[in-house]
């Protein structure tokens, strides 16, 4: 079976006036379904740029990106939008919920564009929120929710269309340690229990330790690709139990 993601020599160049910045200098990597990948690296090393290409929000200047055997570079703008709506869920550092709009409506958003009926939208959004323990917060606006709750709404939104791939660019960057661990626990459960492929960018080793595989970026290149510690020694025992159960 083809891997979920395959990239071949991805190059991304930004032109800022006369200055050219090579954000990615030939990234070749393959990610299988069900993997939990963390991307680490110094600021400006090209992590977000890489994530944007994986999320079909941006296109590489050179190289090939194949998602489920499909060459994304060949797709039109609209086809990429459709792909984002159907196969990819995004979680951002800044939560990116629409202000003055209820959690329910925020989660319904992807369904509007994939053409679900009104009743189905409401039902699936509610289910998704309940799954993240937000059943009692459906009518709250983002400003009425804590950071952790907002990020959970964002995850509920990312999952509402049952995507194959969850892309999270520093999902815990704006959260305290305790809430960060809570969010990571949720992501790990999704990965373990439902086989969702998760790729996340982080600066914190404790967060990266949750992943099976850690890609280290430096100056637009991958300098190391290792199997992770799978969270040992970092996670509370209660969380590890589930994880080890699946590994064995």
């Amino acid at each position, binding site marked *: 079976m083809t891997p979920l993601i395959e990239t071949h020599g991805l190059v991304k160049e930004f032109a800022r006036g006369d200055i050219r910045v090579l954000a990615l200098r030939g990234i070749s990597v393959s990610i299988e379904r069900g993997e939990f990948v963390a991307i680490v690296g110094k600021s400006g090393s090209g992590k977000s740029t890489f994530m*944007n290409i994986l*999320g079909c*929000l*941006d296109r590489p200047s050179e190289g090939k990106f194949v998602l489920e055997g499909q060459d994304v570079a060949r797709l039109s*703008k*609209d086809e990429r*939008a*459709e792909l*984002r*709506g*159907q196969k990819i869920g*995004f979680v*951002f550092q800044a939560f*990116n*919920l*629409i*202000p*003055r*709009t209820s959690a329910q*409506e925020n989660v319904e*958003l*992807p369904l*509007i*564009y*994939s*053409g679900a*009926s*009104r009743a189905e939208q409401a039902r699936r959004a509610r289910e998704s929120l309940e799954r993240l323990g937000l059943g009692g917060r459906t009518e709250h606006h983002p400003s009425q929710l804590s950071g952790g709750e907002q990020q959970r709404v964002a995850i509920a*939104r990312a999952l509402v*269309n049952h995507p194959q791939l969850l892309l999270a660019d520093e999902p815990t960057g704006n959260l305290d340690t305790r809430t960060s661990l809570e969010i990571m626990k949720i992501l790990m459960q999704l990965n373990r229990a439902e086989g969702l492929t998760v790729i996340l960018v982080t600066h914190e080793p404790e967060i990266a330790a949750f992943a099976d595989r850690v890609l280290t970026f430096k100056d637009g290149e991958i300098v190391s690709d290792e199997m992770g510690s799978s969270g040992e020694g970092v996670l509370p025992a209660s969380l590890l139990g589930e994880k080890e159960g699946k590994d064995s």
Partner: protein
Amino acid sequence: MKFLRMTLVAALRALRRNKMRSALTILGIVIGVAAVITTVGLGQGASEAVQSQIRSLGTNLLVVVPGTRTRGGAHSGWGGASTLSVMDARALEREATGIRAVSYIRRGSAQVLYGNSNWRTTIQATTPSYLDVSDSAMAQGDFFDERDMKNGARVAVLGGTLVGQLFEVGEDPIGAVLRIKEASFRVIGVLESKGGSSFGSDRDDLLLVPFTTGERRILGATLPGVVEQIIVSARTETSAHEASLEIEDILRQRHRIRPDQENDFTVHSQEEIANTMGSVTRILSSVLMGVASISLLVGGIGIMNILLVSVIERTREIGIRMAVGAKGSHILVQFLVEAMILSMIGGIIGIILGLVGTQVIAHFAEIPFVFSPGAIVGAVLFSGSVGIFFGFYPARKASNLDPIASLRYE
């Protein structure tokens, strides 16, 4: 379809988030549409009023007045002896074949006394044929006849306004004796009201006397036989033009005007009067229409402005929508729908206000209220297209945003 309904819901939600701003934007459109509806309505009402007044002057009517027509349509040439006479009128009656009847008039104003009442009115000296030529009718009594004319009888026919001024309600004016310039006149008839006022002049405020009597007793006979207007009734409406050419021929001959000289008189036709009045009201209403359209334009620019602000303000929202699967067309439609909702709501309120305004103004200006469904359909479509037209640029701008840049936008 499902998407459209969803978009409608989303658009309404977005507009509700900024109630004050949406309301002010709508107000701009309301004023524009109301102004257009009102001016169109009043313009139609005014031209209707003018047309019906002209019709009421009597069909087939030709009026000959002394003086040359100047380019602006005004007259000059009153200097020296007036150029039209009773003899001219008689000649037309005799010689012109396309003419059914001829009358002529001279006018002046005088104080009319009856008992303790008195009233200054227009005295019109004319012929018995005037009744027929001017398409008037008697409300009471009779018009004077050829015998009264020949004898210079001191008889008078009154207009409705004059009756109201001189007599008590219920008092019979027929047979009453009035005094005008030391002479006594017996009332023999009352004209049926012409109704309405023609640009401020009351057409029922007058007193008619036989031409001979008027000339001798009231208006003065320094220039006997001189008339102010010759009024001609053509045989048919279609022959009015030929009749006017005939009149011109006959009068040029009588006045010994050489071929290279201009007429010393002017023939006005009913059609010409109608056209002049029609074009005056048309010009007036299109000027007003233009002003009104400008206000609608300003309303449209208001929509565009608000949407541009809204696009910038919601850049991040647009980025989020794109990240979760919105296509450019989805974003475009969303903003267009918002623009259309604003302009349609404004349009509908504007139409209602416009119709009410038209009715109120029409009532006070005493012009008929013309209800035109065409103008309403037009205004709805127009305001909708104002929304699309002015909403398109901001919507395009929104749909072309780059998702990554939008997501980063602060």
